[in-house]
């Protein structure tokens, strides 16, 4: 492992006087560049030097304000450097850049600090993970969070690790949840006001999902919000959020629930008054559902299915410092395809959820697909931006791109749905119930939009989404949770004879209309970045990394990276020069060609 190369050493190596180099490196608009201040994080949306957060800023707009690389010169974009990691496996990292230092992660939760101007390795952190690691869809890691002089990482064995940003040395480490029960981490944390926010993977493993806040200095747990309340029944919704019939057999579900509530012989041995220790924050009642139980009375074991109901969180929350609220989306119920073991709406799976940042208390939610049996979970991170309400009046809104192929537009105040877009991919036979033999439905279980973040251009009122078209059949099979192993309740199967493709879609979120679409030869997964230079950047599984005109979708530039470009791009500048950076390491979930490159591009 290479040791820290300090800014002083760097400047000495470059032959520059140390004082002058420090002056250049501190030429930032905000804050003290030796550390990442809260003020810098708050103002990340207008910082044209750094890329401080996974999705650009707390609102998660993925709109980079630097216009040095733009529609007139992007054709001259060329690689400035290529760094090869030691891990040749699925690469989903969002590079973070602080004052000329870049932090990237690889599969198996490794972190590299790089010189963002040269690609030189500064340090490399390899976590010593326990033997139990589980995952769905690859041993991925989507990046780090930075704050003060620390770098924060969630690991595949469900640890939260704080590293010294200058050396990579472990400052503290804490277990987020027990990996043997199916918990794991692939998402990047979010740091705000001394809290490290992180959800959990495990929606395919029979876990009980959560969002947790840890003290950034010590790693001590501050609050936990369980994404599945003890009473997850909801309102027995017959339709999804857009009014489509879910074909639920509500009577059968109610009968199942009633049977589950009957004590079985073994239940008599439970201690009276036992309280679930995980239920540290209990959501309050809201208008869409009954108050979750706060009773201390023992529940029959069968009725405790909330403990394995899933509801993982795959991506970062958006943070609204004005209202002191966070917004995130919750993944699928477990087991994915078999609803017979989990009667009710399965709150708050497949939902947008808002919490109070300081207490973790529930504020509002909207469930997209009650009682999901297709793995149509909400995974792409939400975006806070100004939107037109139904009367055309500007309000604070929240966008989410769904596996359904819709971009949903919410009112941030109460999570209610303002509108949803035209479908970005074909929808057929929604919501046909899975069968033992398998039934075809579109989209496939990867979407629409998978975990890939949206980009937005607030000036154009456009949201940019990357989509998959992957025809699949859905098969259901009943089984008990196999303790820490994948628990899908059946199988999704790609139909090999049908064509697959992808697209990039620009949606006018003030009307829901599609502005432009570009079809790609393969399903798209990874992410997208918009810039003030009138560009969007996105990569493909075939190794092509491309720039498009963000107004029209016209392709303006491309580069063959040699492996799947399936990671969200970032941008930054060093010493006055703007760069675009992206990982090219392929993708496990879609089996795109693996590689190990971090590639930074610039124009001369």
């Amino acid at each position: 492992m290479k040791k820290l190369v300090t800014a002083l050493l760097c400047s000495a190596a470059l032959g520059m006087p140390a004082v002058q180099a420090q002056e250049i490196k501190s030429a930032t608009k905000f804050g003290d560049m030796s550390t990442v201040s809260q003020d810098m994080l708050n103002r990340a949306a207008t910082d044209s030097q750094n890329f401080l957060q996974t999705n650009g800023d707390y609102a998660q707009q993925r709109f980079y304000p630097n216009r040095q690389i733009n529609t007139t010169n992007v054709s001259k974009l060329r690689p400035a450097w290529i760094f090869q990691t030691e891990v040749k496996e699925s690469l989903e990292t969002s590079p973070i850049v602080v004052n000329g230092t870049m932090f990237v992660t690889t599969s198996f939760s490794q972190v590299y600090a790089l010189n963002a101007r040269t690609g030189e390795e500064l340090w490399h952190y390899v976590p010593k993970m326990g033997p139990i690691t589980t995952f769905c869809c690859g041993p991925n890691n989507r990046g780090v969070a930075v704050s003060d002089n620390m770098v924060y990482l969630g690991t595949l064995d469900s640890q939260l690790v704080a590293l010294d940003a200058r050396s990579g040395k472990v400052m503290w480490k804490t277990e987020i949840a027990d990996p043997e029960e199916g918990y794991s981490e692939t998402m990047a944390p979010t740091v705000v006001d001394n809290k490290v926010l992180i959800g959990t993977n495990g929606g395919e493993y029979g876990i009980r999902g959560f969002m947790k806040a840890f003290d950034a200095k010590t790693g001590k747990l501050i609050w936990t919000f369980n994404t599945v309340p003890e009473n997850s029944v909801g309102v027995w919704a017959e339709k999804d959020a857009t009014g489509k019939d879910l074909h639920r057999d509500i009577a059968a579900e109610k009968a199942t629930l009633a049977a589950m509530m009957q004590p079985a012989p073994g239940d008599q041995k439970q201690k009276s008054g036992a309280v679930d220790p995980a239920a540290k924050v209990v959501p309050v009642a809201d208008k869409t559902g009954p108050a979750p139980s706060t009773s201390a009375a023992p529940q029959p074991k069968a009725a405790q299915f909330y403990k394995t109901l899933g509801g993982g969180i795959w991506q970062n929350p958006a943070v609204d410092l004005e209202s002191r609220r966070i917004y995130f989306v919750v993944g699928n119920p477990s087991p994915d395809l078999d609803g017979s073991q989990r009667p009710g709406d399965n709150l708050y799976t497949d939902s947008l959820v808002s919490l109070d940042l300081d207490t973790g208390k529930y504020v509002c939610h909207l469930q997209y697909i009650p009682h999901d049996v297709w793995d149509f979970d909400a995974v792409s991170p939400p975006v806070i931006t100004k939107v037109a309400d139904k009367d055309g009046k500007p309000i604070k809104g929240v966008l989410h791109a769904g596996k359904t192929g819709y971009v949903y537009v919410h009112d941030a105040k109460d999570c209610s749905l303002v509108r949803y877009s035209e479908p970005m991919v074909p929808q057929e036979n929604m919501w046909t119930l899975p069968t033992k033999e398998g039934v075809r439905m579109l989209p496939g279980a990867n979407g629409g939009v998978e975990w890939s973040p949206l980009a937005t251009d607030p000036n154009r009122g456009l949201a940019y989404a990357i989509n998959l078209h992957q025809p699949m059949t859905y098969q259901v099979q009943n089984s008990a949770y196999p303790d820490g192993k994948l628990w899908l309740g059946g199988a999704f199967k790609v139909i090999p004879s049908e064509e697959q493709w992808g697209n990039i879609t620009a949606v006018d979120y003030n009307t829901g209309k599609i502005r432009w679409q570009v079809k790609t030869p393969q399903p798209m997964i990874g992410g997208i970045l918009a810039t003030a230079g009138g560009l969007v950047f996105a990569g493909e599984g075939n190794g092509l990394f491309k720039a498009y005109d963000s107004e029209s979708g016209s392709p303006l530039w491309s580069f063959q990276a040699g492996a799947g470009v399936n990671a969200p791009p970032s941008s930054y500048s060093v010493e006055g020069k703007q760069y675009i950076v992206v990982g090219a390491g392929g993708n496990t979930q879609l089996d795109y060609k693996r590689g190990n490159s971090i590639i930074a591009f610039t124009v001369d």
Partner: protein
Amino acid sequence: MTVRRLGTCLSAALLVSAVLPVSVRADTIDEKAAVCSSCHGEKGVPTEKNIPIIWGQQEGYLYLQLRDFKKGARKNEIMNGIAESLEKDDMKELAAYFAAKSWPNLDQASASDADVAAAKTANSAVGCSACHLDHFQGTGTVPRLSGQSHEYLTKTLAEFRSGERANNPGMTSLAQATPEPDLKAMEAYLAGL
């Protein structure tokens, strides 16, 4: 498989496991692991073809299987008997011990072009490599499949498909969703990697 050799493996393992609990009987990890070698091989090459390679196998996977044998979630007369007396620390120690060994080469033939093509089609349909990873090396609790004994792969996929092996229902669903000829091709492909 010869009856005589199977008898040797069975009797050795059962004899040792029946006398005393492994954790009590053995002091060192080498002693604890000795009982395993009577079937899984002194140098990692199993004594019978339908017995899996455990040398170099993923540590988390080995631990979960021992745990499941102990609980009875995975059925195997010999392994249930051996695992019954193991404590969690024993299982973790044994898993680490065998994971650290070198994976043996069984010199199995590479699959035919037709089998490779069919295996890749099956993989693209149900996504085997989404868990077992590129080159089917596995990680953590997901086992390595490349170079595993062909006969063991055949036996295991058949048992997943029938539900006889019940400690991973996800594999049952995937095996049932895959046509049998494609499974055969996949077995040959994995064994030959």
